């Protein structure tokens, strides 16, 4: 393409872009089936992302939580945390409401609390 043709292509392309943006802004141009497909694609993608992030967190948790905490059952972790809360009522420890935490998050909370107390002592 010569320079003149390149300029014309840029115009042709840009007008197409503006028309496509216009259609997207108006939300018109998809069949019901296509719209459902878009929603499904986003939902499936987000589900996969969440699973991947959960797996990442689990790996990170195993890397930084001491083995003695990892080996504990949930009720033992909760009991230890409650003892710590009672022993250190003024310490800033996140997640004092334990019921909403997953097992992994609960172990991470105990690890954080133990680390904090070790630093304070």
């Amino acid at each position, binding site marked *: 393409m010569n320079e003149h*043709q390149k300029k014309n292509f840029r115009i*042709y392309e840009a*007008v*197409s872009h503006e028309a*496509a943006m216009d*259609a*997207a802004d108006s939300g018109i141009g998809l069949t019901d089936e296509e719209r459902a497909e878009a929603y499904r694609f986003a939902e499936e*993608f987000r589900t996969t*992302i969440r699973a*991947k992030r959960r797996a990442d967190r689990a790996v990170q948790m195993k890397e930084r939580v001491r083995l003695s905490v990892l080996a504990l059952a949930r009720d033992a972790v909760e009991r230890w945390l409650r003892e710590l809360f009672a022993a250190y009522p003024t310490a800033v420890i996140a997640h004092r409401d334990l019921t909403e935490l997953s097992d992994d998050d609960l172990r991470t909370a105990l690890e954080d609390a133990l680390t904090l107390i070790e630093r304070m002592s």
Partner: protein
Amino acid sequence: MHESNTPQQLGRTETTVHDPAWEDAFEVQLTGEMTASVMIYGKKRAEWIQRTTKRHDTFLARELYQDAVTDTWLGDVTWDPAKVPLELHLKRTIRSRSAARVEHLMQFPEDRVRTLKLDMETKMSDAMDTAQATDLTSYVDNVVAKLYELASGDTEVVQILDCFANDQIDRRDVMRATGLDRLAYHNARRRLVRLVEHLPNDLRERAIRAMA
């Protein structure tokens, strides 16, 4: 062409390392409504490619928007959440890729002829047009010449076309170059999009389907 980069292929993301805040932004912004908007954009651009090149591809629109999402997640395309919303980033990715396809086929029309011969879905009538494959540039020239002719009484639209010709395609660049304020730019842009509908019949039918 096969459907590609479906969510199932996210297994590759095991090697992708993103900042958790980046992942948060990606997940929050990847809504169904946003994806539908990106899909509309991708569909229009796919139609533009197909009408311009006369190459039929059932999966092109899907490939454009799904690849943009997946490649962004994988880091093949860089997205900075602090600078631009995910939706605009995805549309820009689709724009860049679709423009590159058409430009390539205009510069190397022999690739298009080869594609036409290989594409079993292409209608015979399209294949008959192979002789005109090298005529893409003149088609584009004709469309642009007619757009200028139709816009001749509209200084602001002509200014925008001139900006496009000079590769000033971003709204802010166009506004800076033309001195148009936001409202004037918006209205002129709408008039420009509508101009396509006023192209003569021989150009109009193909251009409307390509652009609109």
